[in-house]
């Protein structure tokens, strides 16, 4: 159970976040905050799987599906995002099940799983590029401006509305994270990540448990993609899908800390601030530099600080906490293939 003190801290923090845009209205800073919140939600969705050793590089694909399905339905059929977003989420979920089922049923873990999901995000990118007559290909895609009510089209001009929407979505992600954290599924998945065969012998339905968390994660990631699309009003295959986006999710979640609820959020703050600082500091000369710094940091973090910044900080604050479980000792522990 959450302690009374922590609950109070969450309530105060949340109240401050809600009140922020009414006190401080600088549009640029609000824009950065909205981006941080949306990406935090995407990273949190990824970490729901990642923390149990299910390292997916296919989430770029799920995010792209969410974004493109929503935008395509709006432009071509005139369907409101209120209908389009659920359809996009269902499409991403269906793809997750189609790819996930054989992987889990036939015990494809470790390298295999990563490579299969990696191919998934690469292929979603290819499909979006190939259907360029509809999606605009690599030039990007813009949802049509709404003629009627803004609410129906889910298009808002002011940053405050978007800030509150993004905050709500982000909070939803954190709540789901805690819900999973306190559910029985968590123990089942932790058992699976330590030893699949032992977990199966103890009566855990390995395939079903893995599929459930994969589905949940894919649905949330697609939602993040759709929200990102509605906010930015411009998407390209490279910004919402593909391997780079997938790796970006992994990177942020690991830098922030994979095993704490605010870790991915912390990762999003660091990565987006870094990119913006470089962009403002160096202007167009900085093209590519942010990824260079990301890459070096990712390698260094995995070697020297596998629990992430926030995870390591929390450990240092209360070292007497509890004996860490085997799967928490490393950044991402996974059942080794073949064992």
């Amino acid at each position, binding site marked *: 159970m959450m302690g009374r003190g922590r609950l109070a801290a969450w309530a105060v923090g949340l109240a401050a976040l809600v009140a922020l845009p009414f006190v401080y209205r600088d549009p640029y800073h609000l824009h950065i905050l909205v981006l941080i919140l949306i990406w935090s939600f995407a990273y949190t969705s990824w970490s729901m799987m990642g923390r149990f050793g299910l390292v997916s590089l296919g989430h770029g694909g799920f995010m792209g599906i969410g974004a493109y399905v929503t935008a395509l339905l709006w432009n071509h059929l005139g369907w409101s995002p209120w209908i389009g977003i659920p359809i996009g989420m269902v499409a991403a979920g269906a793809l997750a099940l189609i790819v996930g089922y054989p992987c889990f049923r036939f015990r494809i873990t470790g390298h295999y799983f990563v490579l299969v999901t990696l191919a998934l995000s690469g292929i979603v990118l*290819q499909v979006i590029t190939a259907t360029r007559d509809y999606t605009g290909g690599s030039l990007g895609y813009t949802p049509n401006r709404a003629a009627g009510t803004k609410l129906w089209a889910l298009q808002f001009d002011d940053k405050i509305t978007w800030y509150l929407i993004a905050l709500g979505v982000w909070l939803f992600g954190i709540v789901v994270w805690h819900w999973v954290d306190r559910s029985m599924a968590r123990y089942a998945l932790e058992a699976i990540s330590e030893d699949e065969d032992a977990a199966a012998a103890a009566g855990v339905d390995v395939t079903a448990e893995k599929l459930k968390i994969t589905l949940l994660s894919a649905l949330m990631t697609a939602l993040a993609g759709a929200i990102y699309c509605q906010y930015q009003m411009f998407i390209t295959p490279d910004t919402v899908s593909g391997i780079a986006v997938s790796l970006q999710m992994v990177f942020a979640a690991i830098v922030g800390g994979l095993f704490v609820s605010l870790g991915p959020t912390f990762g999003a703050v660091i990565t987006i601030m870094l990119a913006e600082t470089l962009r403002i500091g160096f202007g167009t000369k900085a093209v590519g530099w942010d990824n260079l710094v990301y*890459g070096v940091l990712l390698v260094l973090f995995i070697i020297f600080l596998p629990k992430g910044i926030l995870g390591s900080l929390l450990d240092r604050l209360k070292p007497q906490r509890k004996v860490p479980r085997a799967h928490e000792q490393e950044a991402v522990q996974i059942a080794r293939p073949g064992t």
Partner: protein
Amino acid sequence: MQAFLDIFDIYLLEAVINGILLGGVLALLALGLNLIFGVIDVTWICYAELVMIGMYAMYFLVQYYGISYFLAAPLTILLVAVLGAALHYLVIAPLLTAPPINQLLATGGVLFVLQSFATVAFGIDFRNLGIRLPVLAFGEMNFSYARLLSFLAALVGMVAVYLFMTRTFTGTAIRAISQDRQIMALMGVDTKRIYLITSAIGGGLAGLAACLLVLQYDVHPFVGLSFGPITFLICVLGGLGNFIGGFIAAFVFAEIISLGGLFSDLEWGYVLAFAFFIVMMFIRPAGLLAKRR
């Protein structure tokens, strides 16, 4: 012969043969990745980016320093081999005892580094070697000379690796380590040295692939993304670490891409290949040549 050719659609045959030619280079790429996986148990996510660096090396050696293609190729192979060894020494070696996923993600970081290094250093322009090789006409079919050359060079490269693995002491040690990594250290084999050599060979194969691909494709910092995923698919379909499986899978995929491209855009060939891959995952999850449990 002419009657035989008339029966089949001439374009279909051309696509089939082009598929085989493409398969050679894909098989070479898969071989390098499989070698590293089989011996060190690490997947280099950044493998295609090593190829990209090699392609830039070729471009600069040939275009800026005016070195002839055949002199530049060995230099490039050497450079990428050194890069491969450096990658192992700097990134993989400190993580050898960490969970395998951490090693994989660390090479994902290297992917970012190489891509953005190329962006920063060379810009995002598309560059090509400017060597235009003739087109071979055979009957009514046209084949690019560059593809034929790549196919042959890829075959030579693979045979060379095969001979090295079977005929030399170091090669035998590499194969032994891939069978049992703990016991070989007790048998007096310096595993660190073998790992470094394997990484260098894997890098060298990436370098060779770069020399061949640069004849057919333009270089840009993200070129790795266009054939990286397909290489991983091939390795998984063939069974990671399974050389023969990877070899066969490379040709299967190349045919699918080539034939798919015949009927529609090239991207749809890739999409078709992926659909095939998913179906195969249901049928043979552990790779083409795996025995069914």
